[in-house]
Structures are given as C-alpha cells and as structure tokens.
C-alpha cells in the first residue's frame, strides 16, 4: 500500500462513527493501485483498521467487485440471473468461454479479458446482457457478444 493510499484512507476515518465503517471505500482505494487486493494489501488494511486480516478477507470475498487476484485489462461479466438465463445468457456465456479459451472467473493469457458471470444487473427488460467494465451491452445474441469481446484492446 502506497503512503498516498494510506493517507487517503486515514482521512476517510473521520467520516464514519466507527473506523470500521470506512472499510469498503478503503478497499476500493487499495484496489485502485493494482486492480486487485492481495494478501499483503489485506494485511496492511487490517493493521490500519485494527482488525484481524481474516476479517478484511471475509469482506473481500463477500463482494464480487473486489478481486484478490490479478485481473485482465477488461472485465466482461455476463448476467446469468433469471431473465437473462431464460433468454439464452448461459449459452452465451458458454460460447464466450469457448471463444476466449477460459472459464468464467479466469483471465486470458494475454491479460486482455477477465470473463465472469454475475447476478441481476437490473437490465432484465433488455435481456440477455453483459457488462464490459462499467458499460452495459443489452439485447445480445452470441455473435454480437463475441464481436464486443473481440473489439476490446
């Protein structure tokens, strides 16, 4: 953890009645450094928050926007909740897995894409859908999904 991140986190503390309340924003700040929070970074956070490292790890593992391993340059997450699944999301995910040669949760060997699946992203009316980082792509079919993935740098 860089001294800058540490300082930013320390200023966060004042905004919460209990220090611990600042853990989520602090994890975001830490993750911004390398794109993920590894065991060492979790240890640093634990010291700063005066909680056992395992408690930081529980929070990290709870939310799927936190990563504990190196990530690809782009996150491609397919929604596989009910509406999307009814409209073919699972087949779409399978073909993306085949297309990229990785399983959901893995990163391509060139470090370009991390593929994953997610629960409802609130876009059920335009199912199936996926998100690339923070952009939604809706009303998809398999070919369109592949095209989107291929266009990523």
């Amino acid at each position, binding site marked *: 953890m860089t001294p800058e991140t540490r300082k930013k986190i320390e200023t966060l503390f004042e905004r919460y009645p209990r220090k611990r309340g600042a853990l989520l924003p602090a994890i975001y700040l830490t993750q911004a450094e390398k794109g993920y929070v590894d*065991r060492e970074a979790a240890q640093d956070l634990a010291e700063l928050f005066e909680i*056992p*490292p*395992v*408690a930081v*790890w*529980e929070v990290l*593992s*709870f*939310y799927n926007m936190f990563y504990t391993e190196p990530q690809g340059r782009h996150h491609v997450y397919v929604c596989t909740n009910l509406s999307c699944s009814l409209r073919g999301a699972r087949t779409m995910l399978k073909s993306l897995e085949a297309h990229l040669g990785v399983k959901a949760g893995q990163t391509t060997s060139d470090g370009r894409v991390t593929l994953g699946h997610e629960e409802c992203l609130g876009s059920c009316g335009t199912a199936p859908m996926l998100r690339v980082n923070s952009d939604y792509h809706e009303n998809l079919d398999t070919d369109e999904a592949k095209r989107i993935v291929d266009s990523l740098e």
Partner: protein
Amino acid sequence: MPKITVDGTEYEVPEGKMMLQALDDLGLLLTEIDIPHYCWHPKLSIDGSCRMCQVEVEGTPKLQIACNTPVRDGMVIRTNTEQVRTAQRGVMELLLINHPLDCPICDQAGECKLQDFAVRYGLEHARTRDPRRPAKKGTPLGPTIMLDQERCILCRRCVRFCREIPKTGEIGVFARGDHSLLEVFSGMELDNPYSMNVADICPVGALTTRDFRFKIRVWFLEDRETVCNQCANGCNLYASVAYNKVYRYLPRRNDGVNETWICDYGRMSYRTIRENRLDEPRLGRSTATYSAAIRRAGEGLRQARDSGGRIVGVGSAFAANEDLFVLRQLLDGLSAGPGLLVVPTGKADELLIKEEKAPNAAGARLLGFEESSGPVGPAAVALVLGHALPAEAFEGVETLILIDTHRSPLVERADVVLPARYFAEKVGTFVNHARRIQRFLPVVEPVFECEPEGQVLQRIAVAAGLDGFSGTYDPFEISKRLAEEATAFAGAELGTLDDQGQEIP
C-alpha cells in the same frame, strides 16, 4: 430492575441486557424457558445469524430474535406460539437444505443441536429434491481440529471465538449467500493454545477434535464433574467416562474460574490418568507388597527418630489439602519441622494458563509447607509426595520414601515406593491461584492396587508407632477439621462445597 413476562410467568431481569443474556444470567435458559438458539453464546459477541431464537413480543408485529432484543420493563414475550413454531420450522428447513444428513457417521450425533432441534422443531421430511451442495469433508484445520464443511451451519461461533478469546483470528466465513463456506484463512492453520474449544461450541458436527473423533459414540459416555490439575487456574471440567476410562475432558462452566473455556494442554491431560502410572510398590529395585512397603517405611521413620537422625518431609502441589494435612500431622508427630514444597513452573498467559503448573500450590502454602529449591539432603529419611524434584536433590538422603502417582527418575532413586491414587480416582480439594477452594470427585476407579496419599501416610504413621493415628483416612472428616480450625479454610468444607467452589479469605 425491569419485569418481563415470558409465557405467562413474570420475571425480574437485569437491566440493559438482551433477552437471551438476561434469561441466562438468571439460569432460566434451557431449564425453565426453552428458546432454541445456535449462534448465540453467553461468552461471545452477538451475531444474530441463525434466526433460531425468534420469539413473539406483544405489540411488535414481527417476531424478534431473543439474542439481540433488549429487555424492556413490562415486555410480554411468548416462546411457543404457532407463529414462533412456524418460523422455527422454516429456519430448520433452510439450515438443513444443504446439510449432508450423514448423522450415522458423524461424531457429533447424540450431542448435536441440529439433531435435537430437528426433532423438536423441524419438519419431518425435506421438501426439496435438488442435490445438496458438496463441500470439503473431514479436512484438518490445524493440529487439533477437523472440519466438515458440509455440516457447518455458518453460525460463526468458532469464528468469533478465535477473534475474541485467544485473539488469533485464524478462521472466517468467506464468500456470500449459499456460496459461503467456513475456512481457515489462507496460509494459516487453526493453531492456538485454546483451539479445541471451537469443537465444544460448534453446535453441529462441523468441527471435531482430532483426538476424540471416532473413539466412541457419545451416548456411551457419562460426564462426571472434576477440575484440571495441570496449572494453578484449576479450570472446571467434565470427564467423559465409559468402561472406567476417561475419553475426553470438556470445559464445565464456572464464571469465577474459566467461564466456558479450557486450554488444549489441560484438555489433553486426561491421558495422565492412564499413562505412565506408577503401578506397583517397590523396595529398592524389587517389587514388593503394599504392606511390606508400608512396614519398611514405618520402620525407617522410627529408627531415624529414635536415633535422632534428620527427617525431612516434602509435600506436593499436586496433592489434595486433605492428604497434605495428614503429611503435616505425621511430620509434627515426628517433630520433623515444616514440610518442604517444590512447585513446577512454566509459561503463563493472560487468559487462563498460570505460571504454577500444579493445582494446589496455594493450598500447600496455606497448610504451612515451605517452598524450597535447594537440595533436600542430607537426612536420614526423606518422606516425599509427588515427583516435582529431580533425583539429584536427594543426595545425602539415606532412606528415600516416595509416595507417588506417576513414574519418574525419582522412582529409580527411591528406597521405598508406594503408588498412590491419582486425583481422578479419589475425593479432595485444591486451592487455586485466586484462593478458590474447589472439590474434585472420583471419576474412575484405579486399575491397580493403590490408596490415597492420606491413607498411605496414616498406615505409615501406625507402622512407625506414632500416637494419635488410627490408620484410616477420611478426607471429609479432615476437611471439616480444617474448616473449623484453620482460619484460611474457614467455612470451606468438602461436604458442603458445591460444583462451583468457594473463595476463601
């Protein structure tokens, strides 16, 4: 103090407590009032995760969890309405939805809250046919504990224990929803001096100790009251016994001593009841009968006294007050001066473990035994209880009479050896580091011929021709005398002590 009504009965409860805690403080929980619970534990922080403890509170539309709802004056609580029963059935159904139902091969069966509550509050059969979520079976979490992840109901008692009591924090619940799993934090092991307590507080068969696992089905065991004799804390215990054998120790709650915990070292010391025992009387290198050894000891003492030789007595911090009292009487009868005392020491911590590694150093001191670390000799006769001393300390001792429970190098050095009953085989009292006098009761019968130290000493005194000894030993009688005569023991008598012990002035 607020008054609350539970199922029609009014109770006065302590102020500012949560319902479960308040009822537990009054000793009502699990006795008079039946509020099933998994995650709540009287000595851990509140989690509120299992939802099993729901009750109806008049004036509140929804059910409340008793573990995290503060008592208010005038509160009217119902624990067994249809609404409560329906909620409990629902909770049980959800807790069991991924449970492997492998009770026949589960070591917790028979003392499992999941079984007990399923019988009392659950549905009769599952309504789901989906496959149950597989997870890790029988994997070690560390040197002492095995985890069966499939059986875990995620109550987080073990997690809170590790963070709040030994403060080691090795384990956690990771991921979310029905992906959640109890695991050891990567790169760590569950390994601390108190680790095995997690198996006691785990309400299900997810955590078991590697030591006790699969040794015996628990319904053959009977839990008998005792105390730990491995350090001056004197933690309260149950010895689980079957076929005259102790299979394990469990903590017995005593808020003035050990709350609901014990250390792993003490827990494993049940083995000392059978292991390495001194099991035969000896005269020098050869086996002897009990009475021959006693005769020889008596003669040795008489000769020394008659010829004016020095007689030294050495007490033991492992011996009961009652036994030590007889030793003191005997030494007085021989005009031998106060007995010596050697207390083994070791590391202590801030929780339970004390520096003095024996249960009754405080009692021995109160009885006038004087600590010494130097050599015992030279002397004509040394009369010794216990084996806290190395053989070298007895250089220059002509006759060494040893009354002991376990084998040691000292046994080889001694001229007369008499095996004694171990504390687990007799009744008596110890005084712990905080001057709490505690009783211990026999939990097993000895498997070879031996007598309590007090009895052996009585017989030796008779053999030595001393006045005022009857040859019989009655610890209750002695304790009564101590309680009447010795100010330190005032009012604390074996016959009237209860299972929580008593502080002495």
